[in-house]
């Protein structure tokens, strides 16, 4: 426990902050309530600092197959988390707080949700960080659920409008379905390998592969759990909810959905696949055929469907939702390619790097949308105040001239998401291509290339509308939101894209170091003396 605590300080920090936020969010004093986002942000900063200080190598090798991933993953989670919390600040209870301030309504803790909102956000990020630290299936399952459950609530309470409720109901029920599916997969993996510890599972799978191949239960478990985790990353066929939920939730929450569950899913996939190992197949550098084929099919379908559906959208949030699906498809290529000796050959470091770049640029783009709203709030049927956010792409026509900060932020973020050369999005996507080629997945890389071209169709709209178009009638109806942090996040996102472009090298280096060479050294024995479950061998029965 003590040795685990050594690298769990970020999570502990976040948890304590959660407790604090949950309680003070219900304070009768508005000033105290307003501290919630601040505390959340500070705790994330502290967690980030703790994460950087974490020693990447753990004392015993069984703690997970990628100890090097911990500090990197947690640091990027904390960094993007701070951006998101700035964006979230003031999202819920806005009308409520205004009425309280105006004295229209009396303080009623049951009507206020800000405490829960930030607490749930921190819970979700705690879960996300725990996902990175997971060393067993139980831990992984709990971490994934801790990541997801709060987001269901956050989506539902994010605005007073009914579409948030619709988003919530779809997200929750389909999410429960997804969770049930990967839980069943985990159960079967445990059955097939006799252990829930990823290190031991790796050992058992290696043994099975060396023998007759994976046994049926293990294989079924792996396939089902990968499909189930597909829900978190919005991969086909588990992607259906994405667009509806992204559109229905308040934009800041959408920005969070684009980063948090996706990151959790990819960390889980990396852990699962590293438990399988990339040393099978004809070349000796691939996942087992079946798993590889599954991911292959998912990758191709995910990026293609995401892109072709994104083209048809007129709602920016839906467009970005489908593009988020497509980005997951791109990243699956990295998972298939697996780790490699250099940064360009390592699909895993490509994914880790891409998660960071995607997190920053998508948060920036969503922040631009979140910064635009209509002047007046409306009352919903249940009597709460709701603000009409920008959604239609018409809202950003001529934005670069009308509101240069927001317009240019959108242009920069969209160009980067497109993968325009010499933006960080380009540096993010390039290693996905090169690692795919290095892994011999040429057809997949070609699909990736075609999809990147298709993506230009809609991303260029996000570039040309603000930049070259005159503002239309629709665009005139929007003003910059009075919440100062949102345009700030847009600017930080854009500056972040530029800064990451300039500092691409060091960041790539970090992503590369996060994937320790231990991974592709297939013969590295997994230290199994630390397995308490080891004693109960099946044959030892009776």
């Amino acid at each position, binding site marked *: *426990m*003590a040795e685990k605590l050594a690298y769990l300080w970020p999570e502990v920090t976040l948890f304590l902050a959660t407790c604090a936020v949950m*309680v003070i969010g*219900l304070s009768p004093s508005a000033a105290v309530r307003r501290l919630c986002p601040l505390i959340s942000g500070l705790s994330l900063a502290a967690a980030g600092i703790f994460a950087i200080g974490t020693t990447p190598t753990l004392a015993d090798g069984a703690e997970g197959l990628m100890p090097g991933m911990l500090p990197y993953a947690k640091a990027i989670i904390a960094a993007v988390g701070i951006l998101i919390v700035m964006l979230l600040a003031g999202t819920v209870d806005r009308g409520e707080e205004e009425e309280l301030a105006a004295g229209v309504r009396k303080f009623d803790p*049951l009507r206020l949700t800000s405490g829960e909102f930030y607490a749930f956000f921190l819970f979700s990020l705690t879960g996300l960080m725990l996902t990175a630290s997971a060393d067993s299936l139980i831990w992984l399952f709990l971490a994934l659920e801790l990541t997801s459950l709060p987001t269901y609530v956050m989506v539902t309470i994010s605005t007073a409008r009914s579409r948030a409720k619709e988003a919530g109901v779809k997200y929750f029920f389909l999410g429960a379905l997804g969770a049930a599916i990967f839980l069943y997969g985990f159960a079967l993996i445990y059955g097939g390998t006799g252990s829930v510890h990823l290190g031991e599972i790796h050992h058992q799978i290696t043994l099975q592969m060396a023998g007759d191949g994976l046994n049926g239960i293990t294989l079924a478990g792996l396939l089902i759990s990968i499909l189930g985790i597909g829900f978190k990353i919005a991969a086909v066929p588990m992607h259906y909810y994405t667009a509806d939920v992204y559109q229905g939730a308040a934009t800041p929450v959408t920005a969070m959905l684009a980063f948090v569950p996706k990151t959790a899913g990819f960390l889980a996939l990396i852990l699962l696949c590293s438990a399988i190992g990339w040393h099978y197949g004809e070349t000796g550098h691939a996942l087992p055929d079946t798993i590889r084929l599954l991911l292959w099919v998912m990758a191709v379908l995910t990026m293609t469907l995401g892109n072709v559906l994104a083209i048809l959208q007129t709602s920016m949030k839906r467009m970005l939702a489908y593009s988020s699906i497509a980005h997951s498809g791109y990243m699956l290529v990295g998972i298939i390619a697996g780790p490699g000796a250099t940064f360009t050959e390592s699909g895993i470091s490509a994914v880790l790097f891409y998660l960071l770049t995607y997190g920053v640029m998508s948060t920036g783009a969503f922040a631009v949308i979140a910064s635009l709203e209509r002047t007046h709030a409306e009352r919903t049927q249940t009597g709460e105040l709701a603000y009409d956010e920008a959604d239609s792409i018409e809202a950003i026509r001529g934005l670069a001239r009308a509101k240069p900060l927001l317009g240019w932020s959108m242009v920069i973020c969209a160009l980067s998401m497109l993968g325009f050369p010499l933006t960080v999005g380009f540096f993010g996507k390039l290693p996905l291509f090169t690692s795919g080629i290095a892994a011999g997945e040429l057809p997949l890389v070609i699909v990736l290339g075609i999809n990147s071209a298709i993506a230009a169709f809609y991303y260029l709209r996000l570039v040309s509308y603000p930049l070259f178009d005159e503002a239309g009638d629709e665009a005139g109806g929007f003003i910059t939101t009075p919440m100062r942090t949102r345009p700030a996040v847009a600017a930080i996102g854009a500056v972040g894209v530029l800064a990451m472009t300039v500092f691409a090298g060091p960041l790539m280096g970090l992503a590369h170091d996060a994937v320790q060479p231990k991974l592709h050294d297939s013969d590295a024995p997994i230290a199994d003396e630390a397995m308490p479950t080891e004693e109960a061998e099946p044959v030892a029965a009776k």
Partner: protein
Amino acid sequence: MTTLAATELADYFPLIVIIMMAVTFSVANVALTLLLGPKRDGKVKSIAYESGMNPIGTARKRFNVRFYLIAMVFLVFDVEVIFLYPWAVTFPNVDRLAPGASEWLIRILFFLFTTVVAYLYGYRKGVFKFD
């Protein structure tokens, strides 16, 4: 860890007997009432039984939201017991002089701390206010 003794099905025999008795008793009661009891329907008889009082308003009335809150709070606190149980079973067997033995206590105290936080939250939210 000690070796597990295989459980015999026979060990569960008393349990099965109790279950069977319970099932038999309840089924027999219902069946006997149906068979033997007089059947007379009436307007008064079909109204909801409220301890002899005349019911006020409709039964489809909305419950106060606090009922649901209590239900949820109950659910959460109830589940916590699941974790206390294995701990309580294991704790007496822990060698108190062994290094790290105190961790056993610290763990459960941390766990209870989270419960306290949840209680505090519920309290401030006004879940326990019945007015």
